[in-house]
């Protein structure tokens, strides 16, 4: 059948299994919006307040489901507004397809109205991108874009479609999804090398990253850890892949990681890294990182092996395949000394946390908030965050019950990510969704409240409102002589309750743990729109423990008072 380019695009998105897209119309995508109108029963479009929100929503949709998220924007400013969202997806390896319109081919290169070279701009922040200059290749380009986005190490793909290609007509028949590109399979010799190291290990530590988070390997990893008396730690991106209450699981390690997790990693004699990239926030000073330790790294991406840390055995390719092969060859083992040591580290950690909790005089602390959230959140709740102190507290304290329940910008650290991403995650899953944000981050893209209200998207939005840019303030306290340069927000006088109401949402301000618990439980009952809980906390709460930037585990700060001592 003959369809227009715009119709072929929308049909192909549907063929690829897309249920919801996020976007904003404009001059060079009117035809696409006309096709969305035509097929609105088959593909839901969520109109956001800003294209950046659409990109984050597509990202959240993907993180919560593993499916490819799709966003649409017009040429010029519409396209450039996607950039932060695309870069966020790139740094966290999130599969996403961004569709942009552009001026007709005859006007390309002439600085036409709202013309921008978006493929040029997004070259370094996409896994791949396309400028589609003929209708003949449109359908297969979209199919290929999906295949690239989700194959191997996933990532965002941008497809720029000039207006004349959207308008032209061409034959269209539905096609099967293009299969993912096959991954390399580990050689037997590589597997044997890994097995040998694991059999020799007396203090094994399994280290899970974002590359393992989506694969649903959690139970297999826990079973393996039990067999060989290993402990499991994760990166920020690996959170939610192992249920938090698993006794083998030590939680996140790194700059703001759990004490026991970071210490155990440092004392391990073998690290089995699965889908990790040894980022600077995870390792601290690489020269001092895990120096007495053998490292095995499993990753789909060639370039990750030996990039940040030299490893003893690096196995490129299908991570699940490699892992399954390895565990069949490793012998069951008891490591009682290691178990004793890690259990004592866990006891130390519990003691530090108790000391901090006992010292707290404030009626509401971040830990109290997260305890309330843990006690009250329904099973399968998606936890979304913005970026800053609240993000680290969430990473430390929230209890996850299944994989893909943690949606947060790790690599790029994008403030303003949360609200759009929460919308995407809620639309994609239909599961209860809680956004934990800060007054700084929320201020960046709070316009997306309009999106949640207009689409009746239930979200519980918790603002950890300390009136400061807390993470930067923490550094200023510790390393910059308390020069609080441009990090105090109280002069803004933003009233988040009134603001929520102005957007047509519900707002509630709380000052104590009990008030917060009541508000949180009430908010979960609301099914037709967002609820904003403005939770007022002290401006000098710290994220602890902390490895100072560029420092190593020897420099770990586990407890400090408000003066930063």
């Amino acid at each position: 059948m003959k369809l227009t380019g715009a119709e072929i695009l929308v049909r192909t998105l549907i063929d690829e299994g897309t249920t919801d897209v996020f976007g904003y119309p404009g001059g060079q995508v009117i035809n696409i919006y006309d096709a969305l109108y035509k097929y609105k029963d088959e593909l839901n479009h969520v109109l956001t307040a800003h294209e950046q929100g659409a990109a984050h929503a597509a990202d959240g949709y993907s993180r919560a489901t593993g499916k490819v998220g799709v966003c649409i924007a017009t040429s010029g400013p519409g396209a450039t507004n996607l950039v932060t969202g695309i870069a966020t997806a790139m740094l966290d390896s999130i599969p996403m397809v961004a569709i942009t319109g552009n001026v007709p081919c005859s006007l390309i290169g002439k600085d036409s109205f709202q013309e921008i070279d978006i493929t040029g701009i997004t070259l370094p922040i996409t896994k791949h991108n396309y400028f589609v200059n003929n209708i003949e290749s449109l359908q297969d380009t979209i199919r290929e874009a999906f295949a690239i986005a989700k194959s191997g190490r996933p990532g965002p793909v941008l497809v720029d479609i000039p207006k004349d290609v959207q308008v032209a007509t061409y034959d269209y028949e539905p096609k099967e999804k293009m299969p993912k590109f096959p991954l390399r399979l580990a050689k037997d010799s590589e597997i044997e090398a890994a097995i040998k190291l694991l059999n020799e290990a007396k203090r094994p530590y399994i280290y899970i990253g974002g590359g393992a988070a989506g694969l649903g390997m959690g139970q297999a990893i826990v079973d393996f850890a039990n067999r060989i008396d290993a402990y499991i730690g994760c990166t920020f991106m690996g959170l939610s892949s192992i249920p938090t209450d698993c006794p083998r699981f030590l939680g996140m390690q790194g700059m703001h990681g759990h004490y026991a997790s970071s210490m155990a990693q440092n004392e391990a004699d073998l690290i089995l890294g699965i889908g990790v990239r040894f980022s600077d926030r995870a390792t601290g000073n690489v020269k001092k990182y895990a120096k007495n330790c053998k490292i095995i790294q499993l990753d789909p991406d060639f370039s990750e092996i030996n990039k940040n840390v030299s490893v003893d055995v690096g196995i490129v390719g299908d991570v699940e395949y490699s892992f399954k092969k390895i565990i069949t060859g490793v012998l069951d083992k008891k490591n009682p000394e290691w178990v004793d040591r890690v259990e004592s580290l866990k006891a130390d950690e519990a003691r530090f946390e108790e000391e901090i909790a006992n010292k707290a005089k404030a009626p509401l602390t971040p830990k109290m908030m997260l305890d309330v959230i843990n006690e009250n959140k329904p099973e399968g709740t998606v936890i979304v965050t913005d970026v800053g102190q609240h993000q680290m507290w969430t990473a430390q304290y929230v209890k996850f019950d299944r994989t893909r329940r943690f949606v947060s910008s790790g690599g790029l650290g994008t403030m303003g990510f949360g609200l759009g991403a929460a919308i995407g995650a809620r639309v994609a899953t239909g599961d209860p969704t809680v956004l934990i944000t800060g007054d700084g981050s929320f201020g960046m893209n709070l316009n997306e409240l309009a999106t949640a209200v207009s689409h009746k998207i239930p979200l519980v939005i918790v603002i950890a409102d300390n009136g400061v840019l807390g993470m930067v303030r923490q550094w200023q306290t510790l390393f910059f002589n308390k020069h609080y340069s441009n990090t105090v927000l109280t002069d803004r006088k933003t009233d988040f309750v009134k603001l929520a109401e102005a957007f047509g949402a519900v707002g509630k301000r709380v000052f104590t743990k009990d008030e917060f618990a009541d508000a949180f439980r009430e908010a979960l009952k609301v099914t037709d729109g967002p609820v904003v809980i403005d939770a007022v906390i002290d401006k000098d709460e710290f994220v602890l423990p902390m490895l100072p930037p560029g420092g190593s585990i020897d420099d770990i700060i586990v407890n400090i008072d408000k003066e930063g001592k």
Partner: protein
Amino acid sequence: MNKFVIAVYVENKFGVLTRVTSMFTRRGFNIDALTVGETESPEYSRITISLSGDGYAREQLINQLRKLFNVRKVEVLEPDCIKRELMLIKIENRPEHRADIHYAADAYRAKVVDYTNDGMCIEVTGDPTKIDAFIEIMKPYGIIEMCRTGIVALERGKETLLGKEN
């Protein structure tokens, strides 16, 4: 710091060279020379990159290149591969040097391709070390302008780059 030569087969598509060079900038790779041209197959172009660096830089460069979607094949060429480069070099034409320049050109199997009363242009082809040596010889006579193509390289024997296993 070793010098090495990397050959890359890329799909003949819009913007591929930009993808490759922008990756170099982004990842902070410093390359000495880069050439690109047609191959035996109309589907592919071949990029030849020469650079100096340690083993880490070489491994990273190859792995990052492999990740680019339009890149079909990346190989570090054997050190004994056939390397060729072409240079055009414009020298001052002074009567007292004319004969010496001609002798040198003959010895290097170079050709005089343009000749005026005050300047001459010489074309020289060969291994990059030969070109380097020719430049050294010409320096005292007054180099006015010069331009090198960067190298192209093929490995010896019947085997092809595309035929090699990863």
